[in-house]
């Protein structure tokens, strides 16, 4: 007799993790959209909505702790639940980055941002969120191979971040009156760059669930993702 009740409870928790992933993804997209349109009302609304992300995270954490206490999971089950505790923390932090971008939108207010910078920011978000979506898919099916590949794509996000960084440095050097605004844009880029780092952390947990290996993923010089 398989543990049907336990399996059902695991599935319910997994569903909630995926809902949290969707909430976070939407928050990042909305935050960037608000920045592009300089929509202060939307930014304020998204900023406040971060509370719901936090509540969802705590609700999942509570469910996981209850399940551990009542079902005494072992082996892959306990790795799965331990991984969820880490993954929801990473997701919640990505939600915080979206909140940070909203704060930047409020600080920048009506000031101009070059379209090319906004385009690069959007590209960073697109890459990062695509990594996140595929990481969560890999988590659902326990796909360690995909989880090892996704962090390799972090390099594209880093390249975009470096491009933005150099453009802003040039701007600040040429005109010191742009320093405040450029700094704000740099922070938005930094938040998006950190988002993809969080996806790498999620991938480490997916590999842990699938294989039991608990080590930090590192992108080696030959371009392969490995453990160090």
């Amino acid at each position, binding site marked *: *007799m*398989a*543990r049907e009740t336990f399996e059902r409870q695991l599935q319910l928790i997994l569903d909630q993790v995926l809902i949290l992933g969707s909430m976070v993804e939407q928050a990042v997209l909305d935050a960037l959209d608000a920045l592009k349109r300089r929509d202060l009302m939307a930014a304020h609304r998204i900023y406040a909505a971060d509370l719901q992300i936090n509540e969802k995270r705590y609700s999942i954490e509570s469910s996981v702790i209850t399940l551990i206490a009542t079902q005494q999971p*072992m*082996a*892959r*089950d306990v790795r799965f639940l331990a991984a969820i505790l880490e993954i929801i923390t990473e997701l919640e932090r990505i939600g915080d980055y979206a909140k940070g971008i909203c704060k930047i939108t409020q600080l920048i207010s009506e000031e101009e941002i070059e379209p090319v910078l906004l385009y690069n920011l959007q590209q960073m978000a697109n890459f990062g969120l695509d990594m996140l979506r595929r990481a969560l898919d890999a988590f659902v099916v326990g796909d360690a191979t995909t989880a090892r590949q996704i962090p390799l794509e972090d390099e594209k996000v880093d390249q975009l971040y470096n491009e933005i960084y150099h453009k802003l440095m040039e701007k600040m050097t040429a005109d010191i009156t742009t320093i405040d605004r450029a700094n704000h844009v740099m922070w938005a880029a930094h938040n998006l760059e950190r988002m993809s780092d969080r996806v790498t952390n999620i991938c480490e947990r997916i590999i842990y669930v699938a294989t*039991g290996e608990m080590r930090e993923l590192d992108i080696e010089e030959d371009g392969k993702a490995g453990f160090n």
Partner: protein
Amino acid sequence: MLTDLETSMTQEKQDSTPTLKVDMTLVSEKIQPSSGNKIDIRDFSFYYGKFKALGDINLHIAANQITAIIGPSGCGKSTLLRSINRMNDLVPNVHTEGEIILSGENIIGPSVDVVDVRRRVGMVFQRPNPFPKSIYDNVAYGPRLYGITRHFGLDEMVYNALKQAALWDEVKDKLHQSAMALSGGQQQRLCIARALAVEPEVILMDEPASALDPVATLKIEELMQTLKETYTIIIVTHNMQQAARVSESTAFMMIDSPETRTGVLVEFGLTSQIFTNPKNKQTEDYVTGRFG
């Protein structure tokens, strides 16, 4: 009486099982044969008549550790445990193959002194089974068989055994009362004291807490942690949380196929590995409760 003794002591001392291939590479490298092992079970098979109850067991039990044996009912856990102190000799028409090496000496074989093996390897059973005698007489029973009298330190042996079994403080004022008046948990610790009184090297425990309440179970588990400093302990348990809590190493056994029903060792490793990252699918299914 023991009140004098006390003052004189200056120092307190499942059935749809598919055919199973056993992959011995799953035996952890950290638990390979070594001179530090208390018991080495080598190619051990056990037969009840023609029925092969255990097949080619290779297991290496480290000294001064607790080793848990887990597995579904009927997989041969208790048969293996009882082989380690030759208790199965009491069953008619059994025979064995292979070796069980205890402290460098093969205890399997007709020339071995079985009484001495049972002294060196004590056993505690599922249900407490004190003799219908006094607490003192229960503990003194084994030493008396060896001719030890009160003039030759019997009182001290009883005191030490009860002390080691964490029972002395509870019974020191009623040593000559019936053991049957003790609670279940106390009776089980008395049985442990009875096993310790003959100064064994190994203690076998066959589901020692399955008939006890949670508090008595906790006392037994805590006691095991103290006892392992002096003895090597092997515990058979159906309670996987208990195996995970108390043991350093865990062996998972299973029958090889529904037809032959021979018990085999599927995986042996550090307890931390077996319960978080077992290498074998059958172990994974069993410890996660998806067996059968």
